[in-house]
């Protein structure tokens, strides 16, 4: 069982120091990703999803973020947070690759597709430029780019958004990473192309046998792709479980709200459900539960102590006082 764990993140805390104060962008997040599995991290924008992924790659420090002591990110049992920058450079792109949200801005506009692919392959696979070139062409074909030999000579602005995202996927997978972090990979694309890209990701994931962390705000995307789901809110983990558990039996009031706000074709509703209120200002330290102010079940106790991430009998986890009793029972058993 342990052998199957690819990535183990525990008690990850990342914060930004700004002139207005400290922002705890990721506040004590733990999860594991198993080999070949897809973990969906869902939440609204600004909930710390992207900061989590940038922290795993230890890139957040370049963007003024700070990972606090006590955090741990282990890849196949090896602690990443203690590695030097040079060692991390060998991990990034090789072991853990990443796909970004906006294909229009993620490729360097002044370099050809070829250069951007080949430099990655040469960097990690230690093969010559010629061999790297043919690998690159192969990958372009695999991600469904027609005439790859010709297209590889082109510049990003000559390709459409969907094509560019395919190129980015090709770059990410070209070094056979064990883990792929896809940060909102379809958000910036047209709906029809979104589906194509998701299909492509699913197909290629099996081919290279990579695990995926899929970061999205779109419950529909996770429903299609994920094995496990982590629900984040204001930098904290609110619920974690398998896809079935989350969709069939959501526990946390926030997860319930998220699911209720998905527009559904099979029901005729007057208006879409939406969660009242706004995300709390993280500059002010939050006492108790972060979701309290928007929660319909909030009690006095929710404001005083921060709810732990409770383990429930079915191995899912939830951070809500409503389930304290249930969790205790499971602990007794």
């Amino acid at each position, binding site marked *: 069982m342990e052998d199957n764990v690819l990535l183990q993140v525990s008690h990850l805390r990342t914060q930004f120091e700004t002139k207005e104060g400290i922002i705890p962008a990721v506040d004590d997040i733990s999860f594991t990703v198993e080999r070949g599995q897809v973990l969906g991290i869902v939440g609204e924008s600004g909930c710390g999803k992207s900061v989590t992924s940038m922290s795993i790659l230890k*890139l957040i420090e370049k963007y003024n973020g700070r990972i606090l002591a006590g955090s741990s990110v282990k890849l196949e049992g090896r602690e990443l947070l203690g590695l030097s920058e040079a060692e991390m450079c060998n991990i990034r792109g090789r072991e853990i690759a990443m796909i970004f949200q906006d294909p229009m801005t993620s490729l*360097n506009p002044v*370099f050809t597709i070829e250069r951007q692919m080949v430099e990655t392959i040469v960097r990690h696979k230690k093969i010559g430029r010629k061999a790297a070139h043919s690998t690159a062409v192969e990958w372009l074909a695999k991600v469904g780019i027609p005439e790859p030999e010709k297209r590889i000579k082109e*510049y990003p602005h000559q390709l459409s958004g969907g094509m560019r995202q395919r190129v980015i996927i090709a770059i990410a997978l070209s070094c056979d990473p064990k883990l792929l972090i896809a940060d909102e990979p379809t958000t910036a694309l047209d709906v029809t192309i979104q589906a194509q890209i998701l299909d492509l990701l699913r197909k290629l994931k099996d081919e290279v046998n990579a695990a995926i962390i899929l970061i999205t705000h779109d419950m529909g995307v996770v429903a299609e792709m994920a094995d496990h789901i982590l629900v984040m809110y204001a930098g904290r983990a609110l619920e974690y479980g398998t896809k079935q558990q989350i969709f069939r039996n959501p526990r946390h009031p926030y997860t319930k709200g998220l699911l209720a706000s998905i527009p559904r074709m099979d029901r005729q509703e007057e208006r879409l459900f939406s969660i009242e209120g706004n995300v709390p200002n993280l500059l002010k330290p939050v006492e108790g539960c972060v979701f309290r102010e928007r929660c319909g079940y909030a009690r006095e106790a929710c404001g005083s102590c921060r709810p732990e991430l409770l383990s429930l009998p079915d191995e899912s986890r939830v951070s809500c006082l409503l389930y304290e009793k249930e969790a205790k029972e499971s602990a007794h058993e």
Partner: protein
Amino acid sequence: MKKFLLKRILIMIPVFFGMTILIFVLSNLTPGSPVDAMITADMTPADIEALYVRMGLDQPLHIQYLRWLGRLFQGSLGYSFRTGTAVTGVIGERVGPTLLLTGTALALAIAAGVLFGVAAACKPYSVWDYMASGLSFIGAGVPTFFLALVFIYCFAVKLQWLPTGGMYANASTKDWMDVAKHLLMPAVLLGISMTGGYIRQTRSSMLEVMGEEYVKMARAKGMREKVVLYSHALRNAMLPVATQIGMSVPFLVGGAVVTEQVFGWPGMGSLMVLSITYRDYPVIMGVTVYTTCAVMVVNLLMDIIYALLDPRVRN
């Protein structure tokens, strides 16, 4: 690329005519006319009149302009009042020194601008950053001639490391080391006057580019930080810097006039000042035409360089 070049050249055409018309108007405002130099004491008014007709000065202005333009293309700009020789010849011997001075200064300014700009952007609050802002403030606020006087005072008079001015210690020897020694101070000074803008532009566009998604992606691909900075980021940051360099070339010419004058450098700038004191209008207008055309050519070159840097412009 061909289409882009063609477009740039087409845009240059109205600019060229606009500029030459303005210069032509200016030269008509200057006292004296091209025939003045040919009038001899024994000419009758009728002879002079005939000379005017022969030179086409009785024609309407637009015809005169076209003829003037025609002569311009043939490289005949009249005769100097001061020396009596052809203007092209007078200017010709000054072109080399000016190109040497401005070229060296520009190269130094670009090198320093990019170096300090990148350092200031990548290592804020470092010694480099402070040196960069110091240099850019000197460039922006201290007039070249004042700094030149301070430099001459320090390096030529007090320390006696460098000559106070001129281009050769002995004009007949043509010793390159000697020329380099004479060149150093004026070129550095002219460079300083230009580099402030380049530093600030490089710094700010470098900072902007470092926030871009493709830089994040390059890092996430595992590229080493040096590659990320000097290959991915700098290449993009250079685009606005190239524009800035192109736009600053007219100021380089202005700075050269002052620098050449302070150091007695035998270039077109000091020729301009000399000609003005002698009211040598044909040479004054000749220098004006030459420098403006040179600026236009440099601008076109900068456009080509820009296109080479940015594939989006090229296609």
